[in-house]
C-alpha cells in the first residue's frame, strides 16, 4: 500500500434508538434524508470533497442496508486503486469475537486496517451528522498548531450546551477543559464528534485504553479527557456553518425542514461541493395541471397530482388528486391516494395511504409531535388514532 497522509474512519455502528421506528430495520447513517440522500452521504461527500480518498466505515447495527448502499463506494468517487472506502464490521479473532464496545474500541479493533496505509493522521468522524465541512482546512489547522489532537467545535446556544460535550479553550485555541454533558456548562463550544489525531499518538492511547477495564472505551468519555489530563496538545477547531446531529425524531424532522426555507443555511446546490449519493434511476418528476407545489423539495420519479407545501418528497412517490401534504417527509415509493391529508408526519418507504385517509396529530397538546408511519404499511381510512399517533391495521409487501 502507498502511504497515505490521512485516513478517515467513520463511526456508523450506532443503533440510533432515539429515532424509534426510523431505525427499526436500518442503521441510523442509512436513514433517508433531504429528498434523495441518506444521512451518511454528507460525511462521505465531505471526505470526497476534502480530497480524502481512504475511508473506513465501521458498521455494527443492522448493517445490510448500509453495506449494500456503500458497495464499492463508486457513488462518492471512492472506488480507487490503493484507496477507497472499506466497510469494517466487527470480526472474529483467534481469541474469539467481540462487538465494538465503544467509539474508541471500534478504532482500536481496526488498528491493522489503519496500519496498512501508514498514515500521519487519522480523522475520526460520525456517520450521523448533517453538515458540509472541508476537512482539509481542519487538517491544515491541526498541522499549524502542531497539535496532538484537534477537535472540531461549534458554538451552540447556552441553554443547549448541556446536551453536548463542551470544551473550554484558551485564546490560541488550546483546549483547557472538557466536560461531557455538564449540568452547568463552562463554555458553549460543543464538540462535533470530529477528531484529527496524529496516528502514532492515537495508537498509543487506544492501546492504553484497551487495557483499562474500567474504561467504557469512548472518545468523549475516556480517551479525550485522559489526553487532556496528561497535558497533551489538544486544540479546538472552530467550525462555522450548518451542523446538525439528527439523533431524535424531532431533530431529524427539523433538519429536513431546515432545507425548505428560501435560503437554507445548508447548501445542497453548490456545484463545487456536491452531495453524492446512489442514484435511483428514475425519470424527472411530473407535476400535473391540478397540482400545487410550494416551499418543498421533490425528487426524481414522483408524480404529483395533489398539493404539497413545506415538505420533502423522496424518489418515486405518487401523490393523488386532492391529496394535501404539509410539513411532512415522504420517503421513497410511498403511494398517497386521492384526498388523503398528511401533516407533520414522516412516512417511511413503500407505505400506502389510502384514499381519504388522514395522517396528522390528533392529540390535544399545544406542541404536536411528529407522526411516524413505518415502512410497508397501509393506512386505511377507518384507522384509529391514539395519542401516540397511528395504529396500524395491516402490512404489505
Amino acid at each position, binding site marked *: 500500500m502507498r502511504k497515505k497522509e490521512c485516513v478517515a474512519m467513520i463511526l456508523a455502528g450506532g443503533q440510533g434508538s432515539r429515532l424509534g421506528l426510523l431505525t427499526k430495520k436500518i442503521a441510523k447513517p442509512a436513514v433517508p434524508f*433531504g*429528498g*434523495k440522500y441518506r444521512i451518511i452521504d454528507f460525511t462521505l461527500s465531505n471526505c470526497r470533497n476534502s480530497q480524502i480518498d481512504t475511508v473506513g466505515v465501521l458498521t455494527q447495527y443492522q448493517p445490510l442496508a448500509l453495506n449494500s448502499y456503500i458497495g464499492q463506494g*463508486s457513488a462518492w468517487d471512492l472506488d480507487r486503486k490503493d484507496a477507497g472506502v472499506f466497510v469494517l464490521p466487527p470480526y472474529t479473532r483467534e481469541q474469539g469475537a467481540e462487538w465494538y464496545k465503544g467509539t474508541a474500541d471500534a478504532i482500536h479493533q481496526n488498528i491493522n486496517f489503519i496500519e496498512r496505509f501508514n498514515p500521519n493522521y487519522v480523522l475520526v468522524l460520525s456517520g450521523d451528522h448533517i453538515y458540509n465541512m472541508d476537512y482539509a482546512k481542519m487538517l491544515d489547522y491541526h498541522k499549524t498548531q502542531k497539535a496532538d489532537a484537534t477537535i472540531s467545535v461549534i458554538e451552540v446556544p447556552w441553554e443547549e450546551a448541556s446536551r453536548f460535550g463542551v470544551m473550554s479553550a484558551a485564546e490560541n485555541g488550546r483546549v483547557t477543559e472538557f466536560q461531557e454533558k455538564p449540568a452547568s456548562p463552562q463554555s458553549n463550544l460543543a464538540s462535533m464528534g470530529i477528531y484529527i489525531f496524529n496516528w502514532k499518538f492515537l495508537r498509543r492511547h487506544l492501546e492504553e485504553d484497551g487495557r483499562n477495564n474500567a474504561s467504557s472505551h469512548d472518545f468523549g468519555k475516556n480517551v479525550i479527557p485522559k489526553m487532556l489530563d496528561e497535558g497533551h496538545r489538544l486544540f479546538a477547531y472552530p467550525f462555522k456553518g450548518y451542523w446538525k446531529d439528527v439523533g431524535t425524531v424531532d431533530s431529524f424532522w427539523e433538519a429536513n425542514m431546515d432545507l425548505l426555507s*428560501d435560503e437554507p443555511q445548508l447548501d*445542497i*446546490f453548490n456545484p463545487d461541493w*456536491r*452531495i*453524492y*449519493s446512489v*442514484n435511483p*434511476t*428514475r*425519470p*424527472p*418528476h*411530473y*407535476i*400535473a*395541471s*391540478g*397540482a*400545487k*407545489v*410550494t*416551499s*418543498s*423539495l*421533490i*425528487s*426524481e*420519479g414522483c*408524480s404529483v397530482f395533489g398539493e404539497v407545501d413545506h415538505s*420533502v*418528497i423522496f424518489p418515486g412517490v405518487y401523490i393523488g388528486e386532492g391529496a394535501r401534504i404539509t410539513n411532512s417527509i415522504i420517503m421513497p415509493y410511498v403511494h398517497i391516494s386521492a384526498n388523503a391529508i398528511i401533516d407533520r408526519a414522516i412516512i417511511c418507504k413503500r407505505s400506502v395511504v389510502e384514499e381519504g385517509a388522514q395522517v396528522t396529530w390528533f392529540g390535544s397538546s399545544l406542541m404536536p409531535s411528529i407522526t411516524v408511519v413505518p415502512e410497508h404499511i397501509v393506512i386505511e381510512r377507518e384507522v384509529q388514532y391514539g395519542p401516540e399517533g397511528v395504529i396500524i391495521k395491516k402490512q404489505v409487501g
Partner: protein
Amino acid sequence: MQDVMGIINLNENEEMLREITRHRPLAAVPFAGRYRLIDFMLSSMVNSGIQNVGILVQQKYRALMDHLRSGKEWDLARKRDGLFILPPAQAKPSGYKGDIENFYNNLDYITSSRQQYVLLAGSAMVCNLNFRKAFQFHQNSKADITMIYKEQELEEADLKHSTIIECSPNGRVIDIAVNPAKATSRKVSMEMYIMSKQLLIDLVTASAARGGTDLLIDGILKNLGQIQISGYQYKGFMARIHSIPSYYKHNMELLKSDKWHDLFFKSGPVYTKVKDEAPVKYKESAQVKNAMIANGCVVEGTVENSILFRGVRVKPGAYVKDSIIMQKCEIGENAKVENVICDKDVSITAGKWLKGEDNYPMVIEKGTVI
C-alpha cells in the same frame, strides 16, 4: 440474449435538427429532462440482456464520448464485452458516403465478437423496448432478417423521413420504401434489424465490393428477392426524432402522464449519466402546472406545460410556458419564454420576452445570453 450483440448505428440524418446538432451527434441530443437520445436504445438493449454493444459513430462525437465514458451507468463497463466505440477509420475530405464503409472498417470487432446474432438499431427512435420477444420471434420465424416496425398514421412531414414496409399476409416483408412521398402502408420501420452476424458480414462485404454505400439500400433492399425478411410489430411508446417540430412534439407528449408512464415504467429503467444534483427546490413563490422537472432545478417563478432539464434556475416572476429548457439554463427575473427550446447553458436575462410560433418553436443555441 447472451448470443446477441447490439450495434447502434449513428449514421442518422441530422439535417433538420441543425440548431441542436451543431455541437453533438443526434444520439447525444438531450431529451425528456435528463437523458440523451442514445440512452433509450442502450437501456433497451441492456435491459433485454445484451452485454456487448458497439456504437458506430460519425463526426463530432466528443459530446457522446463524454456522456458514455466507460459505459458504467448502463452496466456496460465489463471485463469481457461491454461498450465499444467504433469510429470511422479516417476522416475523408470527400465527406461522408454512407454507413457501409463504417461497418466495413469495423468488421474486425464484429467478426471477433463471440455472439452469433446481431441487433442493429439507431438512436433517433425513442422507445423502451424489450428485445427478448423480438429475438424469440426471429428464431421461430426462420427468416434471415427480422425488421421491427410500428403501425401508425404518418403526417407528410414525418413520412419523408421514414422507411415504410409492406408485409404479405404471412408476415413476410415484400416491399421497403425509403423516404417515400406517399404512404403505401401504416407499417413504419423502426430501423431495427435482427440477423445472424454472418449475414451482416456478408451483406457488408458484398455491398462494399460492389461500391455500395448504404446498408439498407445496397445491402438489404437490393437483395429483397434473395433474403427472407419478416416484420415484428412493436406496440409501445415510440417517438421518432428527425426535425425540430418532431423533437418538440415528442418531448411535450411526455407531459401526458400515461405516455410518461409508458416510456419510463412499462419496460425496464432508462439509464443515463448521473450528475448528483439535489432534488428540485420549489420556493414559496413557485407556481408549477403540467411540467416535467429534473433534479437540480430551483423554481421561484411560474412553469406551465414545460420540461426543465437538470440544474435550471427559474427566477422570481419568470414565466416559462410551452417550452423545453435544457441543462443549466437560467430564466431571469420577470423574463418570459413561450414556445421556446433553450439549449444548454442559455441565460435569458431579467425582463426579456421570447416567443416562438405554435407550430415551430424558437431555438436558442447553446450558451447564448439574451
